């Protein structure tokens, strides 16, 4: 899911019905969504666990989803409702997208980051079609698996120009088989809490090894990298 603090909305993917739902940020209970992107033109498709992730860019009014089964990233107008076609699609052999599982966007520095089986792929935010990523973080020195079977969210921090993936921190500009600046021992990052200088880690994010109960949330102080 994703939060749009500017328009005070939350954005939730529904993988089983192949839809993107927009709710009021303070929605509760059995409340109808404000808008639903769903239908044949959307090409939200594929197999059993597609589109269980979403990112929102409230500045440029765009919403992003990755699709594992079709190795693609779909971009929609945030204000869209109903059966609408994507405004851009990143898809094709040059993209190196393989089993993309999570997408994040940095609207300040125009970075689109994808956690994929093929590593951390960084695109320009407005990339479209069969385009190569401007940067791929992948290889034995990165500490990421050769094939990342359950890619997690890539957390982007526009101010520090850092990215976090699988409990490892790189800076913008790091490309290729590059060791991370920092490695978090025993915890990962699902999102940042800037006003508390803290991070959110979930036991169930699948990134961090056993030892923690999955049905839990831990809050850690922000790593020094920020």
């Amino acid at each position, binding site marked *: 899911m994703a939060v749009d603090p500017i328009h005070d909305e939350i954005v939730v993917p*529904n993988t089983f019905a192949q839809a993107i739902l927009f709710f009021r940020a303070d929605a509760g209970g*059995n409340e109808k969504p404000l808008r639903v992107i769903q239908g044949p033109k959307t090409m939200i498709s594929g197999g059993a666990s597609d589109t269980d992730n979403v990112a929102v860019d409230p500045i440029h009014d765009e919403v992003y989803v990755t699709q594992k089964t079709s190795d693609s990233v779909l971009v929609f107008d945030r204000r869209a409702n109903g059966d609408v076609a994507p405004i851009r699609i990143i898809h094709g052999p040059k993209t190196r997208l393989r089993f993309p599982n999570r997408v994040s966007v940095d609207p300040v520095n125009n970075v689109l980051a994808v956690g994929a089986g093929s590593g951390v792929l960084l695109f320009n935010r407005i990339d479209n079609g069969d385009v190569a990523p401007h940067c791929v973080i992948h290889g034995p020195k990165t500490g990421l698996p050769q094939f990342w079977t359950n890619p997690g969210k890539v957390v982007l921090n526009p101010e520090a120009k850092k990215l976090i993936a699988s409990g490892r921190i790189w800076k913008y500009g790091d490309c290729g088989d*590059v060791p*991370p600046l920092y490695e*978090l021992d*025993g915890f990962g990052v699902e999102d940042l809490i800037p006003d508390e200088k803290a991070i959110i880690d*979930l036991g169930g994010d699948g990134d961090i090894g056993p030892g923690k109960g999955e049905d839990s949330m*831990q809050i850690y102080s922000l790593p*020094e990298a920020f």
Partner: protein
Amino acid sequence: MRKIVVPLGLFTLAFGWIAFWTAGKDGGLLVWAQDGDNAARRRTIVIKRAPLRIVEDPYPTFHGIAMAEELGELFVSSDNTVTKEGPSLSVYNSQFVSQTNAITEPRRRATVAGFGDARWCGVAISPEFKEAYLIHADGGAGIATIPMDANGAVGEKRFVHTFHAPWGIFSELKFDELFVTIEHVNRIEVFERMAGLMDEPVRWIQGPKTQLADPHGIYVNVEKNEIYVANHGNWRYTEPGEGWVQLQQMRPELWGRRKTYHDDIRPLRPSTGKFLPPSITVFSRTAAGDTAPLRVIQGPRTGMDLPLGVFLDTKSNQLVVVNGGDDRLLFFDANAAGDIAPVRIIGGPATGMAGPTGVVIDRTRDELWVSNWSNHTVTAYSRTAEGNVAPLRTVRGAPPGAPATGMGNPSAAAYNPKRKEILIPN
């Protein structure tokens, strides 16, 4: 003029201490050094620390439910991974007399030393063979068989993989089969009870004709040769035969023999997803393949909202549906079809239901039991109860009022800086 001479060694020591202290405090100098441009010579710094705070539920979250009437025993699964014992199967005496606010001690509690993520949801039993069957939900994808009298940590008697994301299970005794719903691919799988790791379902129901849409609870009426399935209504086109097991959760013996999600590659194409009203689909017990249901209970009059567990009251021929969306039990005539209102409802604040998931009827004692995921309880009612009635008895997995986090396999949390809220999808 006097000069102050600082020995080089002392200067190095002082500088080093300042660097260390700075790094330990806010990491400024460390960050400055680490952020240099020479990535090739970079040495990764490992950051260790304890969490500032932890949010978790130390009590069991009750999910699946089954009953051994002749023993007066309730079998209740918990999928909470952060309890002391982890996911477990607790067995309670259903006929306890003294109702207190204390935690109800089970007669026994079993945990299973298996493989991968254990996250038990559905549970069924076979008193004849003295076995319990636990659904290894989500990624674990399978049925673990353990002895019905298991206590403490036990190994699996058998394990058979289903496709990814099973939920409901029914143990059909006459023909000795296990029926399982698969949420992600709108499918019912039927296994021989003795199926083992290398076995596949003897038949399955799946495809666009089935109207299966995010199926959950399942009950098999062997007298009428019918299957009742509760559907949430999230629908997309599924190919007959579509499905897979998560690679990291697949037992090694099956590597290369079963499809994983990495084999599920498709071109971009028009989307098929849509929201259908929640439903009960009824199939022939022997249905197989892409088969239309015999009848469907569906529509606004039904009041269904996130239907979960389903059970047949054979005395009244009423189908009991756990309505997870509004904490109610809906009763329908088992022969009903179409958009019909429930013949009876149990619901309201007095019932103590919160996030109900499973239901079972004790025909011997005319009682009806409900497992409540959101308040650590299992609540009993008269089989014929109606309206806003208080439970006859309550099995407590936690002190009354103990908060439940509601976290179940959480992922992809997001922080809302405007409202200072953390949102967690489950």
